């Protein structure tokens, strides 16, 4: 009986996986088609001609290499900075008591509910006054504050027993050391989870880079994808190639992060 259930589960999991992967396969196959083949209806999975010219086109005709670099650079800096800043802030909320603590946290939370569209234009004017238009500073700094990250880390830290802190403090460590040497390493899952979302959010960010860059050399991948769509028609074979270039890095990051951190968790007996 048990083996039967196991087989059913496996079959279920495989079919779900197929349902998830198929559209990605579709994008890849479209990216390998010459333009004419993309107009076929009913659509075929693999056209007779397989070509890499779409990839060549987007790197030659459009500065996709530059877009790729910008996205990588901006995202990397953003993710690392966010992890440090958000976890530090969350630590303050999880471990200390101070005046207005709950109010401040609620206020931070509220920012998650602000549709970006509302603050985008005034934000641009502020950045402009700093002279940061078309700079990496302008692309990165305004997006560093993450209430989501603070929320996530606070949740994780609140579930981390204080006994660790206390024993270290008694031993003469200061709070910074407790934070960096004990709390952070114990919450690798939270770090991994957050970095995935932070990466994705930064990588796929569209409206802000659109507003804050005018120079094509400073643009990021989503803008590049959008540039492949002209006023009148869209070249789906090129868009698909661009989409593949945009998806692969995130996928790699995700697979790496989840394998390393999510998974076997060292269960310090005090947890749970």
């Amino acid at each position, binding site marked *: 009986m048990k083996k039967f259930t196991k087989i059913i*589960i496996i079959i279920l*999991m495989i079919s*779900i*996986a197929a*349902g*998830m992967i198929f*559209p*990605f396969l*579709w*994008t890849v196959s479209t990216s390998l088609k010459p333009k004419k083949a993309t107009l076929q*209806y009913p*659509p075929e999975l693999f056209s007779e001609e397989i070509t890499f010219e779409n990839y060549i086109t987007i790197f030659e005709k459009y500065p996709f290499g530059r877009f790729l670099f910008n996205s990588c650079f901006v995202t990397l800096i953003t993710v690392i900075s966010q992890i*440090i*800043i*958000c976890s*530090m*802030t969350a630590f*303050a909320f999880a471990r200390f008591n*101070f005046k207005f603590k709950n109010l401040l946290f609620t206020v*931070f*939370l509220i*920012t998650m*509910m*602000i*549709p970006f*569209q*509302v*603050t*985008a*234009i*005034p934000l641009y004017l*502020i950045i402009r006054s700093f002279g940061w238009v078309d700079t990496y500073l302008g692309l990165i700094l305004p997006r*560093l*504050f993450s209430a*989501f990250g603070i929320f*996530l880390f606070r949740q994780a830290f*609140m*579930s981390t*027993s204080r006994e660790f802190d206390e024993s270290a403090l008694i031993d003469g460590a*200061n*709070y910074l050391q407790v*934070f960096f040497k004990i709390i952070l390493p114990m919450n690798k*899952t*939270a770090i991994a*989870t957050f970095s995935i979302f932070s990466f994705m959010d930064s990588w796929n960010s*569209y409206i802000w880079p659109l507003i804050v860059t005018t120079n094509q050399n400073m643009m990021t991948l989503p803008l590049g*994808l959008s540039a492949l769509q002209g006023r009148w028609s869209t070249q789906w074979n090129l*868009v*698909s190639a661009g*989409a593949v270039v945009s*998806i692969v890095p995130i*996928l790699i990051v*995700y*697979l790496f992060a*989840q*394998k390393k951190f*999510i998974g076997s968790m060292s*269960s310090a007996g005090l*947890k*749970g």
Partner: protein
Amino acid sequence: MQKKHKKYVLIFLLPSLILFVIFQIVPLIWSFALSFTDWNIRTDPNFVFVDNYIKMFTSSDFWSSCLHTLQYVFIEVPLVIFFGMILALLVNQKFKGISFFRGAYFIPVVSSWVAVSLIWKGLLNPKFGMINQGLSVLGIQGPSWLFDPSWAMWGVILASTWKDMGFAMVLLLGGLQNVDKQLLEASSLDGANSWKRFWKITLPLISPSVFLTSMISAISAFQVFEQVWVMTEGGPAGATSVLVEHIYKNAFKYSQMGYAAALSWVLMLIILVISLIQNKLEKKWVVYS
């Protein structure tokens, strides 16, 4: 001890605080002021008192976008959590190759909406799409999905659920992984079957994660935009027009920044109310160790 304490609070909070004030508070206040003007970005703003708010509450477009947004939130979020939980339970197993499944289920989340909407537009095609073709095998004639005002929102919800459930899965998996195995084993020795075990032990233990997931999902669902914009642009005949799409159109298509600012403030209030309600529920349902 008190003094030292204070110094550290400041150190830990300062980076976020500075970013928060400059890049969140100031633009927010600015946009609140804007909501009382008729600014079109290019020229100087004129004060128009509460005209924007009056226009909003007497606009049938505004109310229908509210309705559609609520429709989306109250259907998509429960679906996402439900399927996300199933996925999380499935990938919480330990066997060789489990990472493959975790990776596969997350691919939709990671993909860009341009690519995904193209695919789903194809899947939902009334004549050639696989959804309707599959239905016809079962003898059902599928609807016109994105071209039918009564079905378009369902098409968007379908695609969104598919794309978002991996997101819920990751958050919920984090919670599942923290569940002490010993507790589970103890209960199975006690004779409880897996269903009861799930309800009475696992679920309460991962309630912080469930709360977090539903909070995040709800807040993000209220702000649904990209998929609506790319798949239907709010159509057909306004059937999928949602709040953020309405805001976006007014801000960036019609350059009515003042009106758009007013709209977004109202959206924010709605989200605030819902979150307060969820917060109250947290105190009831969530168990912290």
